[in-house]
């Protein structure tokens, strides 16, 4: 049995002096949802997360966990746990003591504490390491200890602040899958902060894209990819990012096409010149200088395709159903 653990931001603002870190944020994280806050560094995502934890005060607006307003509630009484980027393990304590630590202050009986420790250790495969100090563990093992320490207090909301960024690429891929499993098993609400769109796309139920302290779009991976709400989201999601150029037909509009929705065609409406080709094995990326476009356009080509030589003139055609249009002044999707 557990409380309803939705997280609701209503008009939440965080200011440090003159600097606004989070600007009028409205966001509803549903009970049991895996929500990823995504954005470049300094976009306010970590501040938002730390406000849920109670580590940052709220300047304006209200924050609810379940149906309780928690603006004035101290961190320990919010029923949340947080996995830090650096893991923040206590170097002077054994792994077992680290995992147990959140329980020591919560009137959990000794027997119950031991049961929960064993359960968390088993869940994360840490049983062989319980007597070691964090300094004797590998990066991946430390990360598991941090997860175990978060799991053990059975919080209503799990908060994670870039927990994978200190792992190497291979371990990161593997841990992503494990986090999704963990979420499924626990069934609690996850709020996960990252600047890595791959992490966001692969794990999230929904993604909240932020920039400059403001929420730009909330939606599933597919929604933010297929129908980006504005130019920022369009440019931030997708590798390589969406190609944009002023609409030749409409001065007040900007058109955008993803690299995979372009093809080489003599009848294509975009004329340009090949700048570079990058052959990646499973595909090739063509950099094309387009008249009027602020930056080179990227074209994704299947690997069997023989890319044209640099300098060659070229025409590109876009799948008309996949052309995005944005307002040139507001940047919003039209």
């Amino acid at each position, binding site marked *: 049995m557990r409380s309803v653990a939705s997280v609701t931001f209503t008009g939440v603002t965080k200011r440090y*002096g003159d600097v606004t870190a989070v600007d009028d944020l409205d966001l509803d994280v549903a009970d049991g949802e895996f929500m990823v806050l995504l954005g470049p560094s300094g976009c306010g995502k970590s501040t938002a997360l730390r406000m849920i934890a109670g580590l*940052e*005060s709220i300047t304006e607006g209200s924050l609810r966990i379940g149906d309780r307003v928690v*603006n004035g*509630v*101290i961190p320990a009484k919010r029923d949340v746990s947080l996995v830090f980027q650096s893991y923040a393990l206590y170097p002077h304590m054994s792994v077992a003591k680290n995992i147990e630590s959140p329980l020591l202050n919560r009137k959990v009986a000794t027997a119950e504490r031991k049961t929960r420790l064993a359960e968390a250790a088993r869940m994360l495969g840490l049983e062989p390491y319980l007597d070691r100090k964090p300094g004797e563990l590998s990066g991946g093992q430390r990360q598991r200890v941090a997860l175990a320490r978060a799991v053990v207090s059975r919080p209503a909301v799990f908060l994670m602040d870039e927990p994978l960024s200190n792992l190497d690429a291979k371990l990161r891929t593997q841990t992503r899958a494990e986090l999704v499993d963990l979420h499924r098993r626990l069934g609690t609400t996850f709020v996960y902060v990252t600047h890595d769109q791959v992490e966001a796309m692969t794990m999230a139920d929904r993604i909240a894209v932020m920039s400059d302290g403001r929420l730009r779009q909330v939606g599933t991976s597919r929604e933010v990819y297929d129908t980006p709400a504005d130019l920022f989201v369009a440019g931030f999601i997708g590798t390589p990012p969406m190609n944009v150029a002023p609409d030749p037909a409409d001065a007040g509009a900007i058109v955008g096409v993803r690299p995979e929705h372009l093809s080489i065609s003599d009848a294509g409406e975009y004329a340009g010149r090949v700048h570079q080709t990058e052959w990646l094995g499973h595909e090739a990326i063509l950099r094309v200088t387009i008249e009027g476009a602020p930056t080179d356009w990227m074209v994704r080509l299947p690997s069997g395709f023989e890319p044209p030589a640099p300098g060659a003139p070229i025409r590109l055609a876009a799948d008309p159903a996949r052309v995005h249009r944005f307002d040139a002044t507001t940047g919003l999707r039209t």
Partner: protein
Amino acid sequence: MIARQEATVSDSGRLREALTALAFIAPSLVVFWAFSFYPFQQLILRGLYRNNASGTNLRWVGWEQYGDVLAGNEFRDGLWHSMQFVLFTVPAGLVLGTVLAVAANRRLRGIKVFQTIFSSTIATSTAVASVVFLVLINQQIGVYQGGVPGFGSQAILENPSTAMFGVSLSAIWQNLGLSFVIVLAGLQAIPQEVEEAATLDGYGPVRRFFRITLPMISPVLLFLVVVLVIFALQAFAPIELLTSGGPARSTETLVYKIFERQTPDLLGEGAVLSVGLFGVTFLVTLGQFLLLERRVHYGS
């Protein structure tokens, strides 16, 4: 509403935090008040009064006594003797500490043994170091009972012209360990690449030392100077144990003169001398801050 504190969210939490802080600093504050600030205030006040031989019948004289004492022979002599102590011990400590540290900053087998030997005088107290120098230069039991060449045949500590030098010797020796340890730490903090780059640039060992090493450890040397100056200004045991201020009061430093003025009739004068000692200490510390300030701007 803008700059709200982060540690706790409510105002009562904020008050509690301040009260916790007060409880945490209170023990130190009480001690500092009782044994540093209150006595300092007493010193200043006491200097404003003169008294009779039994220490009673206090008479307000304003700053007159300050003027008399600070311009008088006692303060001048005491300050001069203290300065002599500084002049003998500080440069010597600086040079010897650097020599020992440079010698021991090598990757050689067994270098740790030499480092331990060089730092060994840390284990001695000023009283022990004084007895060591009784054995070395005392006129009755000293290994060397002669004088300083050029200053007559009187034993070092018996000759008013050389006694201060003799007393300083014990401090110089006792400070060796500390000076060595501090300079060595400075040398070890120099990135190896810098020395290697200088070598590649064709600097010989001597030029490398004066052009690269010495400038890089200059902040550490400055720190050492301040430590040694303050030690020198506070020296007492070697003077009492080696010369008792003599001969002919030639080793009576400021601290020694203050110590001698415990009797009630001399308290007013002693208070002014103490304020004078404070002033000198203050100036030295201030000088250090100004120098450090300049270095910081230079460095960044």
